[in-house]
């Protein structure tokens, strides 16, 4: 590949002085910081809080699904007349919860945590950079995200409530529903997208420009590759949704009709707009973003899992090159499968054949990645640490989620499954026990680097086993319900329909499982805060890992490394025959 390059020595000349001299004020150090590690932690904490909030919304919904029309205990009375009179949830409020759960989990929870948090904190360390290429833009992207989040949250306060047309915001419904929630949603989305764009420019530039000496592309940790591809997805797929958001905002506030066809009759009255718009255009622009977006949710997770598997199997990843090529191919293909979400919109033969084929093709690199990770376990010496447990669970869970994508990707079987709980089950298996587990794994794995302390193993294992059981009890029954034909986004859980009667009782089971899942998160929260103070103090490299971030002090200071990092080998050189230790870090020179 290309020749190793020398970063200018200025960086390290004064490394020691700088900390002593430039004592930044509290605000500059923790709030308006330009340090990628602080920004990463800000992203991660904000993301976690949003995940918790999104989960809270979901627990309300699961109550309503389990016991339709019964007053919500404890919280019910606090929700207010416009949402839940006498504690009984209104259908409009259920729809708000659904739309906001989806939006918050995807755009305010997982992406900020996986990309903004882990990407920001870990990636520059792993490539041996002193910081991101554009630290000020990095700070800006966090604050733009923050504003977007505040706008989204604020949308709950007006009595007409938050957006209620699903996270997909299909037109014309989203436009003609005469409440302010959707306007908040659109403005919020524009901020969130802008933030992601700023972030992705920064990531790509950093990876291309700031790799340490000797760190060629084929020596990059897989996590960095995953972030690299993810950034391209963000960079090129988000702008169309930004455009679409602007157009829908025009429809909402300026009375245009980009997405409204002529001749609409709303509650018996003709709608007074110019018309001639196209409702399907929104769906195309939305899914043009949102399909790549789902890979934005999964690729960083795959990256995290690969790091942890390599570390805890004590051997190199199997088929590193195949992994890299697959992830690049996956990223590329994800731009041409979007209309598999739209088979039921009246698609003819050519288009459906095209999108079914691309959808089947895109499943192949996922199979390759999963297979490579599975085969990596062969011949290993597996340490069952908490991060490893989460990472291992990721494999079959993602497997279930991915495999159930196949019948959805074939248009005829999608006729029966589209918009049922089968779809909900499919993607939750990839994003919840998939991505969320990978994120937990990452937190347990990199917590020592960020804080200098380890998290508690016992609490971690309780958290793991409890979550694993509960989360499967929430999502596994969804396949049964979906196959029976139960539709998603049903305020009463589909209680009116004859075909659902045999599967309604699962709603109660899922309810308990969801609250149980909530309880087990308490172990995590306790562990998180306790370990900050009382966790076992650790040195630079507690996991005996090989990648560059473990060369920096824990926690790393401003500028990250004390000496210039130089890379001598591939990322996962564990158990090298003849070596003294079972790990040979990238940063250690060959000893003669």
């Amino acid at each position, binding site marked *: 590949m*290309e*020749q190793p*390059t*020398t*970063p*200018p020595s*200025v*960086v390290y000349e004064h*490394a020691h002085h*700088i900390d002593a001299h430039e004592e930044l004020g509290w605000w500059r150090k923790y709030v308006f910081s330009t340090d990628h590690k602080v920004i990463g932690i800000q992203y991660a904490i904000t993301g976690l809080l949003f995940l918790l909030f999104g989960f809270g919304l979901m627990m309300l919904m699961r109550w309503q699904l389990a016991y339709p029309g019964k007053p919500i205990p404890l919280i019910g009375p606090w929700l207010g007349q416009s949402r839940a009179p006498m504690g009984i949830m209104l259908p409009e409020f259920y729809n708000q919860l659904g739309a906001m759960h989806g939006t918050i989990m995807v755009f305010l929870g997982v992406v900020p945590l996986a990309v903004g948090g882990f990407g920001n904190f870990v990636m520059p360390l792993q490539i041996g*950079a*002193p*910081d*991101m*290429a*554009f*630290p000020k*833009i990095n700070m800006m992207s966090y604050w733009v995200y923050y504003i977007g989040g505040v706008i989204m949250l604020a949308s709950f306060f007006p009595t007409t409530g938050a957006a209620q047309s699903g996270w997909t915001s299909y037109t014309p419904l989203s436009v003609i529903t005469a409440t302010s929630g959707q306007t908040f949603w659109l403005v919020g989305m524009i901020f969130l997208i802008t933030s992601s*764009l700023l972030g*992705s*420019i*920064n990531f*790509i*530039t950093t990876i*291309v*420009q*700031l790799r340490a000496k000797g760190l060629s592309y084929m020596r990059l940790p897989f996590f960095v590759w995953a972030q690299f591809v993810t950034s391209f997805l963000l*960079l*090129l*797929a*988000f*702008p*169309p949704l*930004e*455009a*679409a958001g*602007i*157009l829908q905002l*025009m429809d909402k506030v*300026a*009375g*245009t*009709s*980009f997405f409204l066809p002529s001749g609409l009759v709303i509650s018996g009255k003709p709608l007074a*707009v*110019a*018309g*001639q*718009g*196209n409702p399907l*255009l929104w769906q195309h*622009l939305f899914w*043009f973003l949102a399909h790549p977006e789902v890979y934005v949710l999964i690729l960083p997770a795959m990256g995290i899992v690969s790091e942890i598997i390599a570390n805890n199997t004590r051997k190199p990843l199997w088929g590193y090159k195949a992994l890299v090529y697959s992830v690049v191919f996956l990223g590329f293909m994800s731009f041409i499968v979007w209309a598999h979400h739209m088979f039921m919109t009246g698609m003819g033969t050519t288009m459906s054949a095209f999108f079914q084929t691309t959808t089947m093709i895109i499943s192949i690199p996922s199979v390759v990645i999963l297979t490579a990770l599975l085969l990596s376990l062969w011949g290993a010496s597996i340490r069952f640490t908490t991060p490893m447990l989460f990472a291992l669970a990721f494999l079959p869970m993602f497997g279930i989620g991915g495999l159930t994508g196949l019948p959805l990707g074939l248009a005829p079987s999608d006729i029966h499954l589209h918009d049922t709980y089968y779809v909900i089950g499919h993607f939750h298996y990839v994003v919840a026990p998939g991505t969320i587990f990978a994120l937990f794994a990452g937190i347990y794995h990199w917590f020592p680097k960020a804080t200098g302390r380890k998290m508690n193993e016992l609490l971690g294992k309780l958290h793991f086993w409890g979550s694993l059981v509960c989360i499967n009890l929430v999502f596994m029954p969804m396949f049964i319900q979906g196959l029976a034909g139960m539709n998603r986004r049903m305020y009463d859980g589909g209680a009116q329909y004859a075909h659902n009667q045999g599967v309604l009782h699962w709603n109660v089971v899922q309810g308990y499982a969801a609250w149980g899942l909530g309880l087990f998160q308490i172990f995590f929260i306790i562990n998180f805060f306790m370990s900050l103070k009382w966790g076992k103090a650790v040195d630079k490299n507690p996991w005996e890992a090989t990648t560059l971030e473990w060369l920096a002090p824990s926690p790393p200071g*401003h*500028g990250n490394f004390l000496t210039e990092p130089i890379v001598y080998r591939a990322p996962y050189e564990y158990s090298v025959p003849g070596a003294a230790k079972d790990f040979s870090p990238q940063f250690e020179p060959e000893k003669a």
Partner: protein
Amino acid sequence: MNIPYTVEERPDSGLANGKLGIWLFLASEVMLFGALFSTYIILRTGATEWPHGELSVPLGALNTVLLISSSVTMVMAWAMLKLHNWGRHRLYLLATFALAGIFLVNKYFEYSDHLARGEGPSHSTFLAIYFTLTGLHGLHIVGGMVVMAYLLGPGAKLWKQNPDQFTNRIEYTGLYWHFVDLVWIFLFPVLYLL
């Protein structure tokens, strides 16, 4: 702490950070305007009729001329820095700023003319597209002017401290500015002529 390659080029990529950054930004802009052009095509082909001659071609052509000229002055402003001719650089950058300003004034007249006739964006699909596309483009012009104002004003100090970095900034601003010009080159025929 210094970030490597803010000014000098990284040997293996041949780029400074900002250069790659600005091009990536422009790539995302291509996708942004791409989606809008796509919308235009779809609404246009789906429309039963499409108005002609709603917009003033002379004004539009004048604006095209203004933006093209501003692109020339912008690239000259950069070239003058390369030649270490600070005075000329200031002149050209100021000219670019002024041309952009005139463009906006023109646009203002066009907008107010339509609005005075009660033809806002909700009037027809054509006007909806017209206002959205030119409005967004106008915002890009404003953004460019803000950056230029900064580089003419407080940002100019950098020339004394680090002339190479300042030259790079002008180059990146220029790249952005040419892109805004490029978008207009497409907007003009699409909205005014076809």
